[in-house]
């Protein structure tokens, strides 16, 4: 063996030993419950994840999270990410698999209250005592429906639009009913954010339906919330309404002329949740991943990849924006799963709105 090769091997072994020591030191800082969970997750070896390629940075984001998570917990868990369809579709696939007694195709379900609340009723999410694992980061208010859903990022709903092609800077939802926007805007095929407005304690059915009916003659197509590249390209000039405004910021960074408008009379603060299905193949790795997303590093990566984090953390980037909006007099409607479950009227109204929106005039 040559000297150079020997030195190379010694260096390699030293670095590996140092990394192991560092990892062990970090692992030693974990509470015993978390340590046990990490060991169980490590044994499972992987976690199956699926959401849109634009959520949490898609496949590239998953790779970043995998490295950081394993570094933090001293594990070797593989994040098997597959770009997936809309959150609702993943949810109904999970529900179908649960009914058919099949293992879940994903180990973690990522959804907002609109998608998670109906699934909670089917009872297939595991009630996890999240605080037990990470008491310093998990507040009681983050844990909803007895631990079946864990808040991990905040989103502010509004309208994402192409600032270069917009006929004027919009300030209210009514602006999009003006002739200048006709045939140039899109909505979502799932009535995103209108499903909140339609609730009896927000706009109510009459006002929301009236708006949606008028809007449907203005829109030329339907796209998913994560499909913001189509706003950037100018295929559509605005998405009325979006799920959250992260995409506008992501595309701004890439040089696209994008912006988000928060309507003063329809401002919504929603959350995205992580839930572990009872039929998950790798439940421990799923829990570990969910907990990681609430750590400082996890939150930093959530903002880096998706421009979203949980606004209540002191280090939150989104928190500053929320405080700015509140300072400007914006009052946000807080949309939680609990709120959603208290409004059973939304389900049928939403179905009717989807029908209105998907029908071409």
């Amino acid at each position, binding site marked *: 063996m040559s000297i150079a090769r020997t030195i190379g091997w010694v260096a390699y072994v030293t670095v590996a030993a140092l990394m192991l020591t560092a990892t062990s030191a970090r692992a030693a800082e974990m509470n015993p419950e978390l340590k046990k969970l990490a060991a169980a997750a490590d044994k499972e070896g992987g976690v199956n994840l699926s959401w849109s390629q634009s959520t949490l940075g898609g*496949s590239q984001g998953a790779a970043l999270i995998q490295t950081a998570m394993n570094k933090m917990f001293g594990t070797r868990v593989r994040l098997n990410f597959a770009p997936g369809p809309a959150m609702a579709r993943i949810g109904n696939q999970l529900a179908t698999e649960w009914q058919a007694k099949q293992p879940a195709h994903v180990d973690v379900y990522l959804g907002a209250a609109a998608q998670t609340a109906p699934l909670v009723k089917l009872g297939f999410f595991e009630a996890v005592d999240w605080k037990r694992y990470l008491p310093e980061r998990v507040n009681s208010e983050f844990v909803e429906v007895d631990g079946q859903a864990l808040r991990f990022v905040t989103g502010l709903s509004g309208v994402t639009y192409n600032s270069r092609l917009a006929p004027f800077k919009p300030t209210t939802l009514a602006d999009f009913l003006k002739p200048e926007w006709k045939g140039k805007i899109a909505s979502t095929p799932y009535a995103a954010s209108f499903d909140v407005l339609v609730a009896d304690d927000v706009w109510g059915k009459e006002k929301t339906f009236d708006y949606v009916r008028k809007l449907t003659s203005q829109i030329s197509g339907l796209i998913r919330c994560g499909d913001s590249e189509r706003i950037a390209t100018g295929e*559509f000039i605005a998405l009325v309404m979006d799920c959250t405004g992260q995409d506008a910021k992501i595309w701004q960074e890439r040089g696209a002329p994008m912006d988000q408008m928060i309507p003063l009379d329809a401002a919504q603060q929603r959350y995205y949740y992580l839930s572990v299905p009872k039929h998950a193949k790798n439940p421990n790795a799923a829990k570990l991943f969910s907990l990681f997303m609430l750590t400082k590093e996890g939150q930093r990566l959530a903002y880096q990849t998706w421009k979203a984090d949980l606004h209540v953390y002191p280090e939150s980037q989104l928190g500053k924006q929320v405080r700015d909006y509140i300072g400007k007099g914006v009052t946000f409607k807080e949309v939680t799963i609990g709120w959603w479950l208290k409004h059973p009227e939304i389900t049928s109204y939403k179905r009717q709105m989807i029908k209105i929106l998907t029908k071409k005039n």
Partner: protein
Amino acid sequence: MTAIARRRRGIFRMGEALPVTMLVAVSVVSAIILAHLAVILWLSWTDGSPGSPDLTYSWKNYIEVFKDRQTYDVLANTIGFSCVTLIVAFVFGIPGAWFVERTDFGGKTILFTLMTIGLIIPGFATAMGWLFLLHPRIGMLNVWIMQLFGLGEAPLNIATIAGMGWVQGLNLAPIAFIMTAAVFRAMDPSLEEAAQTSRANVLTTMRRVTLPLAWPGIMAALIYIFTIGFAAFDVPAIIGWSNRIFTFSTYLYVLINPQDVLPRYGVAAALSTFVMALAAALSWAYGVMQKRSREFAVVTGKAYRPRIMKLGWGVYPAWGFLGLYFLLSKFFPIALLGWSSLLPYFQLPSAMALSTVSLNHYLSQPWGLVLTGLQNTAILMILTPTAALALSLAFSWIVLRSKVPGRGIFDFIAFLPHAVPNIIFGVGALLVTLYVLQRAFPIYGTIWILLIVFTIARLSYATRMTNSGLIQIHAELEESAQICGASLPRVFRRVLLPLLSPTLLYAWLWIALLTFRELTLAVILSSSSNTTLPVVIWSLWLGGGLGQASAMAIIMLTLMVPIVAVYWVVARRQGLLATQ
């Protein structure tokens, strides 16, 4: 007693394992095909979720389907889309076929090659390209026309039924070409010569003789293409979906992937049942036309030479016409796809756009998933044609060579996967694996479910190929071998398979290529572990990664090149890319 006498006496000799195995295989596959459709029929009468104890039976789904105005809109859209598809496919396909078969047009082999290869290029890739070309706001051609003529609005819109039909029609023109070329080839030229002797000019001859003679064959091609258009998923999904234009396949996809909790399988099944009835009617019409077209065929032998028309200077417009077709159907959309793959987000060519050109979308692919997709696609490309052809051979032998009572039904069942839209088979397979086979054969979410459904989907084409191959081999050859003491497996190995090998090889490659581009079935049945390359592209596109999806589509098209080259060599050796 001789082997022939033994075979003629009964269904086949007792104790011969191969015929029994083939009959069992054919019966099992037929049962699987029928089970898929039976599940759809059963579900259409149910109310509630399958597997749930509170499942009840009622007319409710049918009432809902037929009461909903959207059903009629969707059907009108689908029929409109299929009609435009048909017109465009014929406008480009029939003249091409006529040039090749009935004129002295040069470069026939090139034309055949390009047409055949054109059929292999995935429809979703060209649809993505057309969106960048003719979208009313971002379509390059529209913007240029608007700038050139100072127009306020885009003159063309791809996001319409006509636009979608245009794209699908361009994609299916090669089928119209191949099918009508066969019709022109088999026509009796003496009738045309007689017409010309009676002083009829070229147009009159064409109107009064050529077209009436070709009509049944053209009608068969027409119904065949209409059926494909009716079931199409990729073009309507890429172009129509985001513009609120639903055709049958995309609407069915929405029904089984609703925005509220559980899929509405019952309603989807009721709609599918209605479409299955339509498909059955179309298949019947296709069968009738096929039979009628054979009545006009002539026996072609070495002495047979169809009348060749001299194009003269007309060769230039002919080349121009066909060149335009290739530019429109393949070059422009794929070039736009390539351009889009190099930009951070799609922009029209400009100095600013050029400054942002990079390979980022190529470098930032989800490579782990792409490799899984590639691996699964490669496995399916090998196993699907192998399984489909092995089964087709069994189907053809049972139908054409055995004396099994009612064997004709197997041929009908083998044709069902073409007649019934693929998406219905996909949904059927999904439900069968979820609710019927979940314990005995847990194949949900695995590559095996894709293999089974892909094999079934290709059975119609594969059996047509093995049927025609087997018909051309006289039974006496096999009987002679059996008289010499050869067992049936030996007859297969030494007589049938060597004689059928060119047909089998060509069909194998063709099915492999179709498997490579298959999207509809894979989308319905995919999960992260059984994903295929087209599904990766679809997921990227659907998730808002237009640039990444374009880059992946270009990678996929590049990967097709060596496979197409092999196909070309094989097809050329067999003379399938040349006429006369």
